[in-house]
């Protein structure tokens, strides 16, 4: 089997980066996730890459070529979008657990109130970094203990400035390969 890490662009050509001779798909545990991430991050140092979803295994090189043939234009468009840019993660946790309510309407009201609070917090961060953001994806309340979590695509040279500004509002991670802007 062939494990596919990423699709990159080198000298104008689409290039899949793979590992041959894989016996089985990887277990999604921390060590394997970090391995995938480190390989993709290293590949990114040499040129733009679109990471594959973790665990992507194909049987033959033809399967990879088929992907490029079928979605080549789309992948080139995404590569152009991420070239010279990095993904920065933002995550705002809060001290809230599951909603406790004695009726359906009370539950809905509490849920709406929470969502509004999360949206306000995400909007504050967004306003502070908007001029640095090329693109962004933010999810409100992905888990009970999290107000919002998301990703910003920024120019590589803006990564530190982004981290300093966004760090006033949320926990910041990155630079990451453009996982959230590859699909």
């Amino acid at each position, binding site marked *: 089997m062939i494990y596919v890490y990423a699709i990159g662009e080198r000298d104008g050509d689409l290039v899949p980066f793979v590992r041959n001779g894989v016996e089985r798909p990887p277990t*999604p545990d921390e060590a394997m996730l970090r*391995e995938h991430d480190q390989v993709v991050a290293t590949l990114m140092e040499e040129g733009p890459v679109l990471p594959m979803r973790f665990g992507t295994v*194909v049987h033959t090189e033809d399967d990879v070529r088929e992907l490029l043939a079928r979605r080549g234009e789309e992948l080139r468009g995404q590569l152009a979008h991420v070239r010279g840019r990095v993904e920065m993660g933002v995550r705002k946790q809060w001290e809230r657990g599951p909603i406790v309510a004695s009726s359906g309407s009370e539950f809905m009201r509490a849920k709406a109130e929470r969502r509004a609070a999360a949206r306000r917090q995400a909007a504050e961060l967004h306003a502070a970094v908007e001029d640095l953001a090329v693109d962004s994806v933010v999810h409100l309340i992905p888990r009970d203990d999290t107000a919002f979590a998301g990703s910003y695509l920024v120019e590589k040279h803006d990564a530190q400035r982004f981290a300093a500004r966004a760090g006033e509002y949320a926990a910041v991670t990155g630079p990451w390969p453009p996982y959230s802007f590859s*699909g």
Partner: protein
Amino acid sequence: VKNEAAVRQREIALVDLVDRLLGGGVVISGDITLAVADVDLVTISLRALVASVEKVAVP
């Protein structure tokens, strides 16, 4: 307190890693298989790892 902060940072980073790698990236529909079986993990140096990553020749 310092340790708690470090653990928290690490947890946040792990959640971020999982969200990105299992929720993002290019998907080849139908060909994805996520194994659930336990696999013995072998630690390989990153240098060896990257050196063994190949490019597929595209005609």
